[in-house]
């Protein structure tokens, strides 16, 4: 369907980028993947740590750039991620916008559509997930909706590839909507008054005015350089608000929803839907009683896949067989033959060698574990279970002064704490981001470490497992609670959307895993190489021995551990897994008794994360924060370990 009106006909050139926007969980990324095929790059949006996917859409011989944006609830952002979407809409002009809507949640989707209409952006409305809507008995008259709004409307089931051809063909017919919303008189009067203060941007003056009236202060600072203009705008907003009984942001949305309800009456028809297996499953997953055993079962399955298959079988295959028997001996031989210099030989293949340690470790040990973890995590993500996990654990997190949304980074931390620290930016308040970062750095063992630790702990008996688990969780909860009191700032509201449970597409899971792996390989392996080189230098300059001697008073008397363990802790900081395996080696050689092993395990778990994580904290939150975290966690780990040691010895537990 093409536009048959003459409203300010902007011709959008073929090279103008296509921008996908929409609510979260509507299938934007699936659509993006389907439209772009192989040609995708993921990079940071300039000036932020938010990642944006860009690709190329090939159609009729033309190649058009297409950009996927973070999900939004409104063009006025609620979080840093959403701010990027607003920025993209402000920056790229001209563009074609495709708004992806979950057909069964049309009401919310139309809120954004109305904003696009007000902004004067040419767009297409894409009603996605048509299959789920049909199953619920929801039918939408796309033709009628298109006539009412004045933009093309296309239905799709992106995950099955249905309707994509038509969508791509319709891209050139995107146009500005004709539908307008009229607000209450004081609001309309305010909009008129504001117009003279507003700059020209890709979004219309009317839409900017409404965003300022709704309270988008960050946008105010960004777009209005003059203090006088800003003061004038704030005054107009205050004066308007005083005339109304409710906050302006709410009233504007309320007005929009009223007109949307009128549209929906004409366009949406309800029939009786089928009770799907998915709907019933959704009830059980968050059931106050049944939800817990289900959670335990899921966690156990994750453990089987990551801990046993990944950390056990795959690591064995790669480390012992591939690297141990084939690659390393061959490379060692090559190096020793080709390079006569002893020092260089040692640097590459010696005790702290680049090849024998850094590469072997990161590729043979950590990679299979992290791969299996990311696979499982992507599966949980796409199936819609993760928000339900947050619902189950919300009460526990509230004890710690967090809300359930923190579940996502914390679970991701069991895979790789460095990556999880990056994910903390989905949390809305800075206070919560800092809290979770601290807790991740403190007590969450990453997958590379977890396998070895669990293996050793269970070897000491169930009592040891309980003590270890109790100490770690107890420390986390206590520190979390204290941090909530001390760190200034607001806790954000616990408002979490529960998306429909659906069977994820294998392709999407694999794509997500590959993307995360790529990040992991590029960001983390260089750090391992750096860490090993640092160790090499420390060892060669005998500084390592010196540090061991310096720390030994604490190690020996307070912790009752042999001096060799200093090396293990030091190494554990630079390469977290090696700390655990070094401990394993000491224990196997009989150098430690059960109490010592348990104390060391607790310390290693509570220890500062690997150096890569510190770098990540510095990158996201600044060097001062990173140093503060380190300065807090190290002493705490030793203190808790020492206390545990004293208690175990006095009470004669574990002999």
């Amino acid at each position: 369907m093409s536009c048959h009106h003459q409203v300010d006909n902007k011709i959008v050139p073929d090279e103008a980028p296509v921008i996908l926007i929409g609510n979260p969980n509507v299938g934007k990324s699936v659509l993006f993947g389907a439209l772009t095929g192989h040609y995708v790059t993921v990079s940071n949006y300039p000036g932020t740590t938010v990642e944006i996917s860009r690709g190329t859409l090939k159609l009729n011989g033309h190649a058009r750039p297409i950009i996927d944006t973070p999900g939004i609830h409104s063009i006025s952002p609620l979080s840093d991620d959403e701010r990027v979407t607003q920025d993209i809409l402000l920056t790229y002009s001209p563009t074609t916008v495709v708004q992806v809507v979950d057909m069964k949640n049309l009401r919310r989707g139309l809120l954004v559509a109305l904003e696009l209409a007000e902004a004067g952006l040419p767009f297409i409305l894409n009603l996605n997930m048509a299959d789920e809507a049909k199953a619920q008995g929801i039918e939408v008259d796309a033709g009628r909706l298109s006539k009412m709004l004045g933009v093309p409307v296309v239905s799709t089931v992106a995950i099955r590839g249905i309707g994509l051809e038509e969508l791509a063909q319709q891209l050139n017919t995107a146009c500005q909507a004709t539908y307008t919303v009229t607000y209450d008189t004081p609001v309309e009067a305010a909009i008129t008054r504001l117009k003279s203060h507003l700059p020209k941007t890709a979004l219309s003056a009317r839409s900017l005015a409404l965003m300022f009236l709704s309270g988008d202060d960050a946008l105010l600072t960004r777009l209005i350089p003059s203090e006088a203009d800003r003061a004038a705008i704030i005054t107009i907003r205050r004066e308007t608000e005083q005339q109304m009984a409710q906050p302006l942001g709410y009233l504007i949305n309320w007005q929009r929803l009223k007109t949307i309800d009128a549209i929906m009456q004409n366009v949406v028809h309800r029939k009786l839907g089928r009770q799907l297996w998915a709907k019933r499953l959704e009830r059980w997953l968050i059931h106050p009683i049944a939800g817990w055993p289900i959670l335990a079962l899921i966690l156990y399955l994750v453990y089987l896949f990551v801990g046993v298959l990944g950390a056990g079988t795959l690591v064995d295959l790669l480390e012992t067989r591939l690297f141990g028997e084939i690659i390393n001996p061959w490379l060692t031989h090559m190096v020793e033959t080709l390079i006569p210099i002893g020092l260089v030989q040692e640097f590459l293949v010696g005790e702290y060698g680049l090849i024998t340690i850094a590469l072997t470790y990161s590729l043979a040990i950590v990679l299979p574990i992290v791969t299996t973890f990311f696979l499982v995590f992507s599966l949980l993500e796409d199936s819609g279970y993760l928000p339900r996990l947050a619902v189950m654990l919300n009460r526990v997190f509230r004890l710690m002064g967090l809300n359930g949304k923190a579940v996502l980074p914390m679970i991701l931390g069991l895979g790789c704490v460095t990556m999880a620290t990056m994910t903390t930016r989905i949390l809305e308040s800075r206070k919560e981001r800092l809290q979770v970062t601290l807790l991740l750095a403190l007590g969450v063992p990453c997958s590379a470490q977890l396998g070895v630790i669990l293996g050793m702990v269970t070897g000491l008996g169930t009592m040891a497992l309980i003590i270890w688990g109790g100490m770690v969780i107890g420390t986390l909860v206590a520190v979390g609670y204290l941090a909530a009191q001390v760190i200034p700032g607001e806790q954000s509201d616990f408002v979490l959307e529960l998306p429909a449970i659906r069977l994820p597409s294998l392709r999407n899971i694999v794509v997500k895993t590959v993307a995360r792996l790529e990040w992991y390989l590029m960001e983390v392996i260089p750090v391992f190489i750096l860490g090993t080189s640092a160790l090499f230098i420390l060892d060669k300059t005998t500084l390592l021995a010196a540090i061991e001697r310096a720390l030994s008073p604490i190690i020996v008397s307070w912790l009752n551990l042999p001096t060799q363990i200093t090396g293990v802790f030091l190494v554990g900081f630079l390469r977290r897994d090696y700390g655990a395996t070094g401990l394993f080696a000491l224990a196997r050689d009989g150098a430690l008794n059960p109490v010592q092993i348990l104390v060391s395990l607790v310390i290693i778990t509570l220890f500062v994360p690997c150096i890569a994580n510190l770098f990540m904290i510095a990158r996201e939150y600044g060097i001062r924060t990173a140093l503060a975290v380190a300065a807090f966690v190290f002493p705490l780990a030793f203190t808790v370990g020492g206390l545990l040691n004293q208690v175990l010895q006095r009470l004669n537990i574990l002999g």
Partner: protein
Amino acid sequence: MLCQLCGYEFEATNMACHTECPMGSHCNLICCPNCGYQVVNESKSFLVQLLHRLWPSSGTIKNSNHQRRPKNARRNTVPLTHIPIGQEVEIDSFMDMPPDRLTRLSLFGLTAGTLIEVLQRYPSPVIRIDQTELAIAKEILEQIWVKL
């Protein structure tokens, strides 16, 4: 304020010993200009504020969940917490809800006149508006008032 020792009345703000002294802004003591008696200014002490939070005095009401009905509540309206699970009701108004929260909820379609249903209360409250399911904190549930 009134000095507890000598009874001298003076203005505790803008004291010269705070404005002239370089440490003045961090000084958490108030000294009587007449007799020199020192009293602690609790609002300026970080440690005291922390102590208040970790160990609230028994005089404070920790739980603001008053059982009394607010005066401005309309007839035939009750908070959503009073509605049984599975019953669909219409939102009437929002009681004492901070503006940010109000705006955020409106983006999910939660406005006066919308139909809402409580799906469960434990382990976390979950509500349904049309086809959207939201897990929300209990305090929010108490602030949404619906028509009986």
